[in-house]
């Protein structure tokens, strides 16, 4: 069975393809955009496409014209397995399936695609959070330095003061540190 993965996000596409390769026997190919000629040559049984790919509408039209006769899985599984189509849409995955393919096989492919989409989102979230944490730590260090210099505090005292300010204001310590640095900048006259 041949599966074509269309996803403008190359990292996510790679994850999906890697996940699908664990489902035997599958031949998986991936592309950032849908090319009708390439797709016709490959003749996929299933096209898994990211919901945020604009190529979805082109696939819809092929379905309409019956050229490759792929049917939207959204319609296809809805009757046999309530909830699956909704899950897929919410996960950001759409699939087009050649007529007559067993629903169980479609389901296993969709399951892999959905879990890999969720994984991508989680990894991206973790990365963004790690970056923000790092940034916040740097900001806190600089604010501490400022307080030590301006208020003559030791490192521990500067940190305690920052923590108290954060608790009094109900804000994260990184935010309080950033505010402090911004105000210090203004007072020094380098407002921008």
């Amino acid at each position, binding site marked *: 069975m041949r599966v074509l993965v269309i996803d403008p996000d190359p990292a996510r596409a790679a994850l999906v393809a890697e996940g699908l390769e664990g489902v035997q026997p599958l031949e998986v190919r991936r592309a950032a955009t849908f090319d009708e000629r390439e797709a016709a040559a490959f003749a996929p049984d299933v096209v898994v496409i990211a*919901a945020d790919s604009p190529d979805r509408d082109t696939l819809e039209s092929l379905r309409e014209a019956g050229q490759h006769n792929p049917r939207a899985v959204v319609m296809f599984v809805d009757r046999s397995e309530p909830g699956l189509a909704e899950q897929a*849409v919410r996960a950001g995955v759409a699939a087009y399936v050649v007529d007559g393919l067993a629903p169980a096989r479609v389901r296993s492919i969709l399951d892999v695609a959905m879990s890999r989409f969720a994984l991508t989102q989680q990894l991206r979230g973790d990365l963004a959070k790690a970056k923000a944490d790092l940034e916040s730590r740097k900001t806190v260090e600089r604010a501490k330095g400022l307080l030590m210099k301006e208020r003559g505090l030791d490192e521990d005292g500067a940190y305690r003061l920052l923590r108290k300010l954060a608790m009094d204001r109900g804000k994260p310590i990184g935010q309080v540190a950033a505010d402090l640095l911004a105000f210090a900048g203004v007072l020094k006259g380098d407002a921008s």
Partner: protein
Amino acid sequence: MSGLADLTLGFIPLTDCAPLVVAKARGFFAEEGLEVALSREASWATIRDKVLVGALDGAHMLAPMALAAGLNDPRSAMLAPLALNQNGSAITVSTRLAAQLRQIDPEGMAEPLITAASLAKLVEQRRAQDAPILTFAMVFPQSMHNYALRYWLAQAGIDPDRDVRLVVTPPPRMVEHLRLGEIDGFCVGAPWNAVAVDEGLGEVLIKASQLWPGGPDKVFGVTAGWAERHGDELRAALRALIRAAAWADEPGNHAELVALLSRPDHVGVEAEVVARALKSEIVFHRDAAGLPRREHALWFLSQMVRWGQVRAELDLDQVADAVYRPDLFREAALSLGPIVDPAMVFADAAPAGGGLFDGASFDPAKASSYAAAFPIGRMRP
């Protein structure tokens, strides 16, 4: 502000998403007690699916897409309680194709209204020379753009399924595909025709306002089930959207509207180009543009029958009345008071008049026989 509800509404980056963008940015949704998040989507199919599963509460939608949604499964039925715009789209061809057309038919191309007669001559000549057939793009099988392009071609005797090749291309990629020579022309909404002209790649042959003055285009679509469960929220959203449409029509607001639309999170096209496309013709509110007219629904359905997208035996009146809901529009519009002229709210008591560019009359009471009478069509029994 006591929040009535949080809504997520979808849109596609096109000028006719303006009522949604304006209602949000100008605070019209908020004044109705709605906390609205706008979600920019990449395709019409995704808009449809997300609305169907409830990931979106409502969306900017192709009118025929709303009509077609419930045909195979009544659980997917949608409503169109508001039309978002009239006009705005156009048929554009590559500058190369325009030059060839001018060469083969200088008189036809000099007419104020350009039919596909010139193109028919070129298609004939290319066939005699064994040249490959021309490719035209539109945005979705169930769209005004598909039906308008097909109507215009077939009116001059060009069979859109045999004499040319029709493909679906997402609006933001139209101009690039024209540049690459993958397509020879397209029918798409604003601002993409203006973008093609601006870049020296395309020439507009006919605008929607010439093809069908006052003709329909996009709607605001929700599922029938959602409308039933959220009557108050729907009315509130419609009130905000109607106010936004009226605001968007005011020439005094155009500079601000252009700035809003050109933002990268909205349409993301240069302000000048958005401005030109806006000035040329798109209507959001006046001339009862917001009223979802039954005759428009029936015309769309007649074209679905004509091109074999639905069976000819389909009860067109029943579908039109179930999906197009002028009553919901009226209820919301009348509750707004002086913003809306009451005469406009009942404008559909009389036929819209005008009609398509070829002068052929369309009687909504005879939509099925109208569909059957075209010499070129793909009717299925």
